[in-house]
């Protein structure tokens, strides 16, 4: 809740404290990459990163930059571009704690957070090593049936939700359209930080056609303008992913040195273009 949520990208990144539980969306939902570069630039540390339900380049870069203490996700994938080298390397060198999950478990635990529930049940999982690796998950007997074991997941309540969207208004409302997981993230989180392609002077709730696709201002703490703010990831209906840039990243990130060199280039580039 913030009367004047519009701020500069640098301020937005500065307001993410070290150690924050930060929740981020998957690549097709609006990834705040410009903000991620600002976070790396400011040297954020000790994040508990929750991916809804997976991540790609964003988690990979934050992990590579040493910003992440705990990574909770159903997958980290760069798709056809190849392995997420820094993610794999960090695991092998025990530099991060991994909480491997499954997509519906991330969604359900976040919905529990949204509803203020301490836990939520979920089907599946029983007999998997995923469950065996998560002492924070419990199996109980369904109290409504005989001999029906079921998993309970504790709620996820992030400190901050961070994503990129096409449009906000100056009152703090953010348009997300069909990307409803962003709304759940905002509801479940204490604060929501959003970067946007554009900021309108017109109240988004004034348009009955747009209103159903809005994250209301009451959930939104900070909004920063970031043109092409998802780059090099795409933003549906606005721009495609920059495949050449991602390919170059994956090539470079095979070694830590290559990654750091490449990162330096990206951080400089953003600073110039911003």
């Amino acid at each position, binding site marked *: 809740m913030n009367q004047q949520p519009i701020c500069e990208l640098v301020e937005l990144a500065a307001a993410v404290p070290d150690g924050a539980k930060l929740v981020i969306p998957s690549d097709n939902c609006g990834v705040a990459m410009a903000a991620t570069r600002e976070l790396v630039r400011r040297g954020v540390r000790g994040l508990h990163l929750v991916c809804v339900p997976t991540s790609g380049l964003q988690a990979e870069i934050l992990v590579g930059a040493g910003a992440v203490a705990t990574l909770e996700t159903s997958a980290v994938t760069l798709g056809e571009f190849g392995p*997420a080298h820094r993610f*794999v390397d960090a695991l092998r060198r025990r530099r991060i704690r991994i909480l*491997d999950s499954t997509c*519906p478990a991330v969604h359900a635990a976040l919905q529990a957070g949204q509803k203020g529930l301490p836990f939520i049940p979920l089907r*599946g*999982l*029983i007999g998997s*090593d995923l*469950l065996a690796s998560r002492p924070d998950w419990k199996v109980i007997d369904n109290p409504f049936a005989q001999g029906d074991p079921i998993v309970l997941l504790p709620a996820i309540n992030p400190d901050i939700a961070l994503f990129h969207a096409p449009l906000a208004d100056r009152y703090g409302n953010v348009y997300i359209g069909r990307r409803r997981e962003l709304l759940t993230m905002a509801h479940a989180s204490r604060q929501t930080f959003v970067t946007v392609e554009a900021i309108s002077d017109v109240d988004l709730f004034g348009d009955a056609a747009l209103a159903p696709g809005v994250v209301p201002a009451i959930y939104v703490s900070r909004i920063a303008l970031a043109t092409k703010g998802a780059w090099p990831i795409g933003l549906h209906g606005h721009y495609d992913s920059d495949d050449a840039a991602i390919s170059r990243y994956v090539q470079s990130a095979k070694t830590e040195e290559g990654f750091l060199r490449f990162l330096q280039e990206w951080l400089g580039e953003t600073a110039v273009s911003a």
Partner: protein
Amino acid sequence: MNPGYSRAELLVCVIARLLEGCRHVIVGASSPIPGAAALLRRELTEGAMRVTILGSNRYNAFTDGGVETFDMAAQGRVDAFFLGGGQIDGQGNINLVGTGSYPENEVRWPGSFGSAYLYYLVPKVILFREEHTRRVLVPRVDFISSPGVSAPGVYRPGGPHGLLTGLAWFSFDRQLHRFRLESVHPGHSVEEIRDQTGFEFDCPAEVPFTAAPEPGILALIRGRIRGEIAETYPRFASTFAN
């Protein structure tokens, strides 16, 4: 050597046959062969079978965010889904996490995605992995992302229907907890399957060849289907008839 169709075309055709009777099939974001097969089956049913392709905008009529896939599966509104695995074993267990000991795996893969849920709830899960080697088809997976079978009492309306590889099609027997070799793709042999498979499986005395794509089906794949999948899998569309 040249049967008049590519391996990808054969696999698309086999999967389309397996989807017979389905009302709604969901395909993952980076699964072009199952995607093409689902679109083919949709074409054959004149649109009666619905197809959702995750990550697509054209073949995605969801309005409740990413969770809708999983909620739909729990509601019984998803008849078939596809899963792969860095390792798959003879009990149908799949491993999408990595080899060696967890979490500092020797080889680490992206992660389990929705497998530890959809494998339990979707009635017809088709395991699909083109690579058919002892590296992939192992006696016992190193990490169970999702098990092939569950103990009695565990809620599990879904599970493995079978395993399709670049060499063969196995059905899965949920009572016996075993795969059964149903057909070998043309140009391959039962011996080759035995050599390349790291787990035990049932093998009838006579194993037929996988039926080749019918000419009309091939024409469909190369025509309308290729055009349709171009939106979702542009690179695949340009190569898969080769």
